[in-house]
């Protein structure tokens, strides 16, 4: 385990606390490390840094360590931690926010999950609605497991639960594309596809 000198990060801690408060309406300063968030977290078993430790990193001003966490990526956004937090710290808001920040900095820690969500959003941007067949095929090809879950397909197609053709309307498609265009202009950021692992092979 790495040794970190926290004296030098305390000034940074104040800035981070204020920043998280402004952006996510969540005050890490109130946390008294009871660990209830991690106790109830369904994904804690797979995390390198469980939620209460992520909050503690923020309290200590260890921003780089926060950005390195895999746990913000593994969070299933079930909000159990926030619902149970006795101090109303809202760990789930912070986990989600940190994940977006890491992604915007080009640091993707759990690639398959990022690919899935990026593919999803790409389809929404293109068609206005999600086309499940394209999502699954695109995802499988991107992670190099083309036949993943393929065994479900025949029954689903037969039962009309997996459509071979996309369903949308031209108005829905056009308006959602416009929302994306306006959003890209407003945020002046590159399209998410260009920042992380959503590349189509």
């Amino acid at each position: 385990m790495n040794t970190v000198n926290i004296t030098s990060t305390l000034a940074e801690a104040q800035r981070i606390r204020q920043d998280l408060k402004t952006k996510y309406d969540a005050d890490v300063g109130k946390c008294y490390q009871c660990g209830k968030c991690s106790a109830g977290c369904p994904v804690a078993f797979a995390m390198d840094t469980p939620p209460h430790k992520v909050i503690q990193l923020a309290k200590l001003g260890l921003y780089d360590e926060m950005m390195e966490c895999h746990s913000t990526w593994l969070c299933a956004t079930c909000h159990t931690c926030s619902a149970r937090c006795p101090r109303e710290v809202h760990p789930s808001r912070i986990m989600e926010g940190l994940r977006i920040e890491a992604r915007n900095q080009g640091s993707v820690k759990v690639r398959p999950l990022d690919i899935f969500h990026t593919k999803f959003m790409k389809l929404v941007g293109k068609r206005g609605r999600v086309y499940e067949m394209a999502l699954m095929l695109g995802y499988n090809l991107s992670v190099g497991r083309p036949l993943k879950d393929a065994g479900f397909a025949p029954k689903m197609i037969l039962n009309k639960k997996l459509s071979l053709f996309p369903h949308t309307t031209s108005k829905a498609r056009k308006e959602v594309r416009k929302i994306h265009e306006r959003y890209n202009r407003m945020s002046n950021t590159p399209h998410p596809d260009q920042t992380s692992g959503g590349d189509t092979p």
Partner: protein
Amino acid sequence: MKYAYYPGCSLSGTGLEYNISTQAVAPLLGIELCELPDWSCCGASSAHLQDHTLALALPARNAALGEEQGLSLAIPCAACLSRSKAAEHAVKTSEDMRAQIESLIDRPYQATYPVKSILEIFIDAGLDTLKENIIKPLTGLKVASYYGCLQARPTDFMDVDDPENPQTIDTIVAALGAEPVSWSHKTECCGNSHPIAYPEVGGPLVNRILEQAEKSGADCIVCACPMCLGNLDMRQKALGKKRGRPFNLPVFYFTQLMGLALNLRPKKLGLKKHFISPIPLLSKKDLLKRIKIKKVKNKPADTPVPASESTETPTPNPDNKKGGPA
């Protein structure tokens, strides 16, 4: 009551049973669902992991379309509901965000008409109305009501009776004459998209829920989310194989159970579309056979009138139809 029905993307595909059963049941309870024209994806569980503002603008567009018609959205899918409620909450609590959303969607959106879950709408329609219409009480069926995350949380904008032990689905299940079991994993997370995108982590989450439902003595699970049903139904066989003992827990949408009790045809409810077939369980409990109804002239076709029991169906006397436990 009339609503703008927002099916969402899943309900045309993997959640088809939820769509058809909702649309079959609603008119029987006096609820009019008109599909929102040109609805678009709400961003579901992906958009909010990539950008907060975009994740609010996408569902806001649909709610704004509903607002133009003067209607509340009626939403079956728990993820769509959660995102739409998030947008509604954002617009109501921040003028800045409202302005930003309105400029992104290029429409006014004041959140005047509250978005509603189809579950809430059925409860609001009155359990008495439901009970009056029950023709075939689901006697003897033990049901584990599974709410998952998004019917219960986040607590800042989901109007839930009790986030740790919600009762809405249980109340409907009990009204249908079935027996809701008490169990521990009602609001535990099924992993969202993890079972698809990251099964190493998603698998154990689904497994825990299935094991706890099994231990509670339930015959089946009932839920109100296409993602939850997909995870619990599709992954069940493989997880059973992995633990060396098969699971046998059919997973229903609550609207399918309502339809059964209202004597609708199994085909109208999509009961044959599940991976874990509920047909053997329903036959064993004598719940599959429809009660024969004598057609009365000049009556609307969608109001079933109980007349006589079919010879082989040992279901209760229709005169007794209100007799299911409440």
